[in-house]
């Protein structure tokens, strides 16, 4: 019997799960190797659980999310959170630095109808997660590698070192050294293939902190490039603002 795959959505933009549909050439092979049992974005046909692989997109932001994620864990062998929302809380975790009631009052005419949590948090803060696939959005080749590794019972090759590593392997000239552009690459998890520096921009940190990030040292270097404290806060408060290493560093400059 083919292993059953389910795709779940929490607070997110759907971009990560669309990466699976984006696999185009490989999608048929994936569909041959796996039974796509629950994937509302792709098909209305739903096969009941339990599931072998659950891909979870999005962050936990409501009391209802808390119940749903428990249920998903209970019926899945492997739970894999995909993307910056699911692994760090996403861009919506910017609320964690302010009072959420203030936002509600500003946005909604009747805030009393809104049920929300004060924080947007990663899936792994609530249940046991077997693997976290980083990125905003995730890289489809990495998703395929992960599915491939699971099916073949081997370790996935998903490097957790810095983006600098990918930058150098690709032969890109460092934008920080050659142009003085602040770049989050040295503290950011590899996975995108170092896209931004290849287009003469600093890394935005979409894949969150690397396996041994050291943002305090990087901030010092940014400061000598003329980056202000306010800009430092903004640099670390992107899609992964609630990832511990970035959160702590941004708080240092508030």
């Amino acid at each position: 019997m083919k292993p059953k795959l389910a795709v779940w959505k929490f607070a997110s933009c759907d971009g990560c799960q669309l990466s699976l549909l984006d696999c185009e050439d490989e999608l048929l092979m994936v569909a041959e190797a796996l039974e796509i049992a629950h994937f509302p974005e792709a098909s209305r046909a739903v096969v009941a659980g339990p599931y072998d692989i659950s891909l979870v997109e999005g962050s936990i932001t409501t009391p209802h999310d808390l119940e749903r994620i428990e249920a998903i864990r209970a019926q899945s062998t492997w739970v894999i959170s995909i993307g910056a929302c699911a692994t760090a809380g996403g861009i919506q975790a910017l609320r964690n630095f302010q009072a959420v009631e203030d936002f509600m009052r500003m946005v909604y005419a009747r805030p009393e109808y809104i049920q929300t949590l004060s924080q947007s948090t990663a899936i792994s803060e609530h249940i046991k997660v077997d693997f976290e696939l980083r990125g905003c959005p995730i890289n489809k080749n990495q998703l395929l590698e992960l599915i491939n590794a699971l099916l073949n019972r081997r370790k996935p090759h998903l490097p957790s070192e810095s983006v600098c590593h990918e930058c150098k392997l690709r032969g890109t000239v460092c934008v920080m050294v050659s142009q003085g552009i602040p770049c989050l690459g040295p503290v950011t998890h590899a996975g995108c293939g170092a896209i931004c520096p290849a287009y003469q921009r600093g890394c935005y940190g979409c894949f969150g902190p690397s396996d041994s990030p050291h943002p305090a040292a990087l901030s010092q270097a940014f400061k000598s490039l003329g980056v202000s404290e306010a800009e430092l806060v903004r640099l670390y408060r992107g899609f992964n603002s609630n990832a511990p290493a970035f959160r702590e560093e941004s708080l240092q400059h508030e």
Partner: protein
Amino acid sequence: MQTEVVLLQRLHLDLLLSQLQAAGYQTVGPVVRDQAIVYDRIQSTADLPMGIGDIQGKGSYRLRSRDDAALFGYVVGPQAWKKYLYPPRQLLMRAEQNSRGLQITAPDQEVPKYAMIGVRGCELKAIQIQDRVFLEGPYSDDFYRERREQIFILAVNCTEPGNTCFCVSMEAGPAAGPGYDLAITEMLETAEPCYLARAGSAKGAELLKHCNPSHAPATLLEKENALWTAAAAQMGRSLNPEQASAALKSGYESTHWKDVGERCLSCSNCTLVCPTCFCSGVQEVTDLAGTSSERWREWDSCFSLNFTLTAGRPIRQSPGARYRQWISHKLAFWQDQFDQSGCVGCGRCITWCPVGIDLTSEIEALNALQTKT
């Protein structure tokens, strides 16, 4: 072998390039790309960075325009020639499970034949250091060997070292040592530079003959010598290899490593730009069905946490421990392992470290701490 010095003009260099191309070489050399001088394919001297120089410092690199027509008036940039001999990613083998069982095949790849134009003394020495690593001893690397055996090296003697250079300390320059096919010195006497050339191999001598060059006048040779002496005196940095090695061997427990660990990002840029660093990782890439697989080798670095994964845990957990490993291997243990230093003083690790960590200052600081206690 001819050791005679001849005089070439720029048109001769173009002639050399077209002869190399006719002989089946891919000519690769310095070009300006993305605000730096990198190595890439070149067709003629028109592709070279004419009138472009650079200013380098700790964690900083900027191109500048020169007020002359120098083609080689720059200091080594972010890339090393190792990318041609030891590419960042290399397919090692394929395996396939079929009706005949498990079939393993060597990758069927054409071995590129490179003519490297503009190899500096430090870079030539770095290639020789990697030769030792990849070719000597009981396990030699065929992928490296195949490429290495075919290369043609046109060296350029250095006359204007940069602020992060210390090749003189490492006996790697400024003039290129033996091992090149041809070596040239760019002379900026007149508006159009001319070149003093020496052959270092039969291949090089043969090629030179076709240029029908004239003998170099003695006055130019004297000037060349003066340029080298001046270049040797202009090194931006210096290092005493014996002292460094001793300091590292006795400074294993120094508190200095914690201090470096507070500044170092563990980003691995220093190792990846270093022309002698050779560490790699190997991965199996399977297809979804699990019936075929490719084995790839990829540059790795001792700054990666996973590089020393043993029984599921990395051995060198702190950034300071990883920096200590790198600098100690480079400047001390390489000596025990390969009878030479692992550093040629090219300065790349200093320039391309985003936070400007400088191994020569780290050795000084370590030394100072040790003499104090």
